[in-house]
């Protein structure tokens, strides 16, 4: 539910969802009061039908294109609706809506273009050690490639101003999009800030999350994306 410090401005929350029929409803209900756009990324379960009950807008990719592609679709749609601030939020309930007002405020008062959620500045619940190590490795990688000094590189909880959303173009359709967004923030000189957030891990979210082997794949995708622009 919306907390105190209620943000003003046209805020849209973009949620990319794939096979999330069992969890998307709870996530959307926790965001009651916010305008939400769910992009069903070609799910074969009832994600689309369930999302239609609780979201403001629901879009559906005819095939599974990847989280990055789904987010870009949602961002494009939010821009076309006149969004002033766009939030990217995970469908699986990992993120805490209570963090939203603090995340939104810097963008809504125009003090920065992008706010990035940081679980390492905030709190994590039931985060496995392997995941912690993997994310720390990703931080080192990002600091080397993007030269952004941030504490959490693969957090799906972000707020983009309208200007940032129009500037950033996600071309990495799958998991490498998180690094690509950071690259584009740096390349385009967008101002950014980190905000502490809470991330809750469950068996289900961990099952869908990234594995250590994905780090190699993501690095390869990023490299390929730089070669074939």
């Amino acid at each position: 539910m919306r907390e105190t410090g209620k943000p003003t401005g046209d805020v849209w929350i973009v949620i990319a969802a794939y096979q999330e029929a069992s969890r998307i409803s709870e996530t959307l209900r926790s965001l009651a009061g916010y305008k939400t756009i769910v992009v069903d990324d070609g799910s074969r379960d009832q994600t689309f039908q369930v999302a239609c009950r609780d979201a403001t807008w629901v879009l559906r990719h005819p095939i599974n294109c990847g989280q990055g592609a789904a987010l870009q679709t949602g961002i494009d749609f939010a821009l076309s609706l006149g969004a002033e601030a766009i939030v990217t939020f995970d469908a699986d309930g990992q993120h805490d809506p209570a963090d939203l007002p603090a995340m939104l405020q810097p963008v809504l008062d125009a003090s920065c273009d992008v706010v990035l959620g940081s679980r390492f500045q905030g709190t994590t619940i039931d985060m496995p050690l392997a995941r912690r190590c993997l994310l720390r490795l990703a931080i080192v990688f990002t600091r080397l490639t993007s030269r952004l000094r941030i504490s959490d590189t693969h957090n799906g909880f972000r707020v983009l101003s309208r200007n940032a959303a129009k500037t950033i173009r996600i071309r990495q359709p799958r998991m490498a999009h998180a690094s690509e967004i950071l690259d584009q923030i740096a390349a385009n000189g967008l101002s950014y800030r980190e905000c502490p957030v809470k991330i809750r891990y469950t068996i289900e979210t961990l099952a869908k999350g990234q594995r250590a082997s994905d780090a190699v794949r993501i690095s390869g995708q990023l490299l390929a994306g730089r070669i074939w622009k």
Partner: protein
Amino acid sequence: MNLFQWLTTPVLSGLVALELRAYIKNRQAVHLFRLTIWMVGIGLILLPGVASIIADLLGIGRGTDLVLYAFMLFTTGGLFYLYGRNLLLQRDVVELARRDAFRGATRGEGTTRQQEEPPGDRTANGGDP
């Protein structure tokens, strides 16, 4: 000429003729490239000693090693090219899926009702309504 040379040379010559005809018709560099490959193939099959001479000049030693290295280089280059093509194709597919999603945008029954009309089929990058 041995049996292998008798079998492969006519096939490769046919491919040379096809590529030559395609090049004359379309004037595309890719046909010239393939033409060169087939002609080099014919040359190396008919004159195996040439590969050894070139290998010797390059310090590789044996002609068979030269052919193997060249094959590895071309295979790697080919895979690299195909990966790039696949990546670009994937982007096109995503763009098509995105347009389809825009066309089929559905108003949900969420608690916050907005008055905006569906934005319809918009091009990438969103843009103002």
